[in-house]
């Protein structure tokens, strides 16, 4: 039985008494991927933040890497968070730091990641080369386009080679070409490191790429796989509640009026 990476048990998170997610339960095992879909304000981002202990549940339990993090204090969470990487919605790069400093941040600041100072720069260069932005080391985030900032965010999320990577709307607001490039990087990262991946998106296309394509190192591109990749699941959220959990095929075949409308629209 593969290791449980993330488990939500009847989790409710509310803001000012209004639930953002309600009685949510799901589990993701090592090497699997989940695509969380839903309309705006359906609680998708809240799931990711709760998974890392950035938000505390009002009820229910959250298990990260098999450990109950629900009631842990902030200082006790740092070590376990070091095993996960996250790309925030707009990248959330530190605007007072250079791109090099941004990408190096987890290496320098996470105690669990014991990276010798002389290895920081080569690792940053490798991470930025992976996202094809090795020429931006000395720039600041405001000098980059939205798509480039997301790519830097991907480099920062993956530089410590975490066991779990969370992507919050990595393609939102981007043109289709840039969005596909970003998805290619995410698939490449998943297939090269076999990291457990959770992606929040409003585009069904992003989920399909993750479920139906794999990275081919020989051609440096994505190849369509016959059928679907195992261990890829879709979760559809509606007003804080989980209304669908299943495979891409089950999602396409669903008769639920809300989900099918959502799927067709995207």
């Amino acid at each position: 039985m593969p290791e449980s990476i993330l488990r939500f048990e009847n989790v409710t998170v509310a803001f000012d008494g209004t639930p953002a997610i309600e009685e949510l339960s799901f589990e993701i095992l090592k090497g699997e991927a989940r695509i969380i879909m839903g309309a705006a304000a359906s609680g998708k981002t809240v799931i990711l933040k709760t998974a890392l202990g950035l938000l505390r549940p009002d009820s229910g339990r959250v298990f990260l890497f098999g450990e109950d993090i629900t009631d842990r204090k902030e200082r006790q969470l740092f070590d376990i968070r070091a095993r996960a990487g996250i790309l925030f919605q707009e990248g959330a790069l530190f605007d007072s730091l250079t791109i090099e400093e941004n990408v190096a941040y987890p290496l320098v600041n996470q105690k669990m990641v014991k990276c010798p100072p002389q290895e920081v720069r080569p690792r940053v260069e490798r991470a930025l080369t992976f996202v094809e932005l090795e020429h931006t080391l000395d720039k600041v985030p405001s000098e980059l386009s939205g798509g480039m900032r997301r790519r830097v965010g991907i480099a920062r999320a993956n530089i410590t080679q975490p066991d779990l990577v969370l992507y919050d709307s990595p393609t939102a607001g981007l043109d289709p070409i840039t969005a596909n490039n970003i998805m290619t990087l995410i698939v490449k990262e998943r297939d090269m490191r076999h990291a457990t991946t959770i992606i929040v998106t409003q585009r069904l296309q992003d989920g399909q790429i993750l479920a139906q394509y794999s990275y081919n190192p020989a051609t440096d591109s994505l190849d369509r796989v016959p059928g679907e990749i195992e261990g890829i699941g879709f979760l559809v959220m509606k007003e804080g509640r989980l209304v669908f959990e299943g495979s891409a095929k089950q999602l396409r075949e669903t008769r639920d009026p809300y989900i099918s409308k959502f799927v067709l629209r995207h």
Partner: protein
Amino acid sequence: MLDFLKPPVLTIQEFVFLAGRAFRGMSRRPHYPKDIVLQMDIIGVGSLPIVLLTGFFSGIVMALQMSKALQTYGAVNQTGPIVAITLVRELGPVLTALVCAGRNSAGIASELGSMKVTEQIDAMRALGTDPIQKLVKPRVIATAVMLPCLTAISDFVGMLGGYIIAAALLHQTTAEYWNASYRILEYSDIVQGLLKPFVFAFVISLVGCFYGLRTRGGTQGVGLATTQAVVAASVWIFVLNTLVTKIFVSI
């Protein structure tokens, strides 16, 4: 009635929690000395021009007003001592703190507020940094060190302003003015004049950090947090000034 009281009580509770975490973190590692020095530069050196101007002109105005009133009693030579006592005990600390509240509480709230709404605070937490240690602690330490220094400078340039009026319009000699000013000041005045900015420093920095870190929404939220920080810090400066003055008057 209870519903009406809930929000302010919750706000105070959250503020006390933040202050508690900031004070607990003072002795904990990491200490981020580079950030402390950077903040000392921004808060201390950055505020110097406006503090100099405010202090200088308050001294001038004080001297002008007092000399007019003292003329009635034939005690114009007491202008220096009155300017010195008023500046060191009250005007220096309060005016400097208000100027710094307007400049630094607003600056801290808007900087941290922008970081909050762009998820940089969450990113910091996710990447292994405690925002209280990294952002709040350096600002509190920097303000606590720099505000008493700024107040001392403000007091001095205020007295200098008073001296210019005394020398130019009241025909006092340099020795007359400075000797009288120096002799009137007691040890307790200096302690009071430096203790007040030390207390106000915590208000200015913690209130700025508090409103910045609880910013919600987009740019509108940042604007609101900035305004709230300045208003709250200014009000608390007056309240705490009254309390500290009462304690020193009682002593």
